């Protein structure tokens, strides 16, 4: 005789076997639409740079070279000293996050250096994205990091060194703890 508990157990086993089956089935293409991308297509579209550096291309640059890129390509909107202007400041604000006037910048707020590379590559210069070479990107990122006091002027940024840069606010992010007011169930 099976006890009610072991019956329940068997029920669960059968159920999970059924679920497993359903997932495997769902994993085989059902509608057979679309085509595989070519290797070149996939490479060209894959612009995401992850915090561990995955996605970063070959190339290198230092703040010394980056100053020139910055002056020509970025300063008109972000200010000669990165202080901001028509657009956001790219410097300053360290130590202000817990004050009534927090200044969130690359230097004071951003947790990962890779994000500067990823964002500049995909979106900057704002009106002409895509004009910078990989070397220019590494260089201008190095320049921004140097101006924020995070790396030295001669430190070379490349796909090995950039993910290792320790950002001042790297530990500044926490999980979403809501609902923190209003009661109700947790997500």
């Amino acid at each position, binding site marked *: 005789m099976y006890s009610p508990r072991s019956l329940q157990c068997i029920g669960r086993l059968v159920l999970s076997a059924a679920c497993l089956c359903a997932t495997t089935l769902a994993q085989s293409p059902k509608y057979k639409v679309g085509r595989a991308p070519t290797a070149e297509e996939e490479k060209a579209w894959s612009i*995401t740079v992850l915090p561990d550096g995955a996605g970063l291309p070959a190339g290198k640059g230092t703040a010394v070279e980056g100053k020139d890129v910055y002056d020509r390509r970025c300063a008109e909107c972000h200010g000669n000293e990165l202080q901001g202007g028509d657009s956001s400041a790219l410097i300053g604000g360290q130590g202000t996050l817990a004050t009534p006037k927090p200044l969130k910048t690359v230097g004071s707020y951003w947790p990962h250096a890779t994000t500067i590379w990823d964002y500049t590559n*995909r979106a900057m210069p704002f009106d002409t994205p895509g004009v910078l070479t990989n070397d220019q990107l590494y260089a201008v990122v190095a320049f921004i990091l140097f101006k924020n006091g995070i790396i030295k002027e001669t430190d070379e940024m490349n796909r090995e060194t950039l993910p290792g840069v320790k950002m001042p606010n790297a530990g500044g*992010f926490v999980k979403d703890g809501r609902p923190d007011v209003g009661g109700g169930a947790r997500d």
Partner: protein
Amino acid sequence: MRQKPTETPSETASRRKFLSLGAAVGGALTACAEPQEVVEEAPKRLGRAPDKYGERSPFERSSRLGSASKNPETGSTRSPLQDSHGIITPSSLHFERHHAGVPEIDPAKHRLMIHGMVERPLVLTVDEIKSLPSVSRVHFIECSGNSRSEWTDKKGRTAQHSHGLASCSEWTGVLLSVLLDEAGVNPEANWLIAEGADACKMHRSLPLDKCRDDVIVAYGQNGEAIRPEQGYPLRLVVPGFEGNINVKWLRRLMLSGQPAMGREETSKYSDLLADGKARQFSFTMEAKSVITRPSGGQELAREGFHEIAGLAWSGRGVIERVEVSTDDGNTWQDADLQEPRHRIAFTRFRLPWTWDGAETVILSRATDDTGYIQPTEQALIAARGHNSDYHNNCIKAWKIGADGNVTHV
């Protein structure tokens, strides 16, 4: 109810014409003791012929509201919620928020790539996506920066200023889970990085559980193709998650073992707390409501009956209850909720009300089916401080003056 500041010069001119006509008629009739409303004669002028694409009446002026910006391509416009009826926002009035302008995309040339940690990377045309099993669902989308003004002393003057970065549409498309199954997701993948075809290639990371649940790759909005400013030809609709993650002009879905930590999920759309730490991946838009009539900028023309109407929504589910107070929060009454109530959608509430002509403050408070009750401003600030910027869903108050003017408090 009159809308105060929106009379345009041509309206004023036509009203003047109307008045002088009235004066002429009044003069002809002489013995009118009180000014009389002039009713049009029997209509006899032939109207215009049918048209290929409809326009609203030239007398209707309700419009989106933008703000001046040095880089308008990163700007936003707000929906005129105070003028809305029912629960659907017309596509032409759906709020906008872009980070690099609205691209012009030929759907015949547009492709969606699904790749990364999948068994079969795929490139799909828009027509192929439209051939798949489809769903139509009513969902609100709300920018997490909506009601940002409510964290400050400069509260929004009108419902459009304070709450207009939220809109609600019927979205049609294919469930993302269908596309994920076509590509075959590897077991190690737990994030999906979605990217748009705008100039900044805006991208966001979504937890895979959510993607398998109710996310739509949408091509239809309110019965027609999605508007360009809403992501034509394809956008993600991520029910209940902050607006920015509903990636527009969708062109790439990359399955990943880690989030991208992109600029829009670190520098922006993270919520700074009083202690200097910031909440990250704060996706859910919590229950919220606002009275749209009477609301800031409007005027009650007379004492007596006025319906109170408004909108409530929750990113966690269904609106269960909306309470309205007409005495500054001393007492609350349940408002009627328009049926059917859709999950993660605007819900219209209404309460019959007779105004006695005295100054008062009116408020609304929503509860969703998780039991969550819309909080006060003080409760939010006590929990998060003043620097959170995003996700303000506090109770909104409108003051009605003895002169009938409605203002923010």
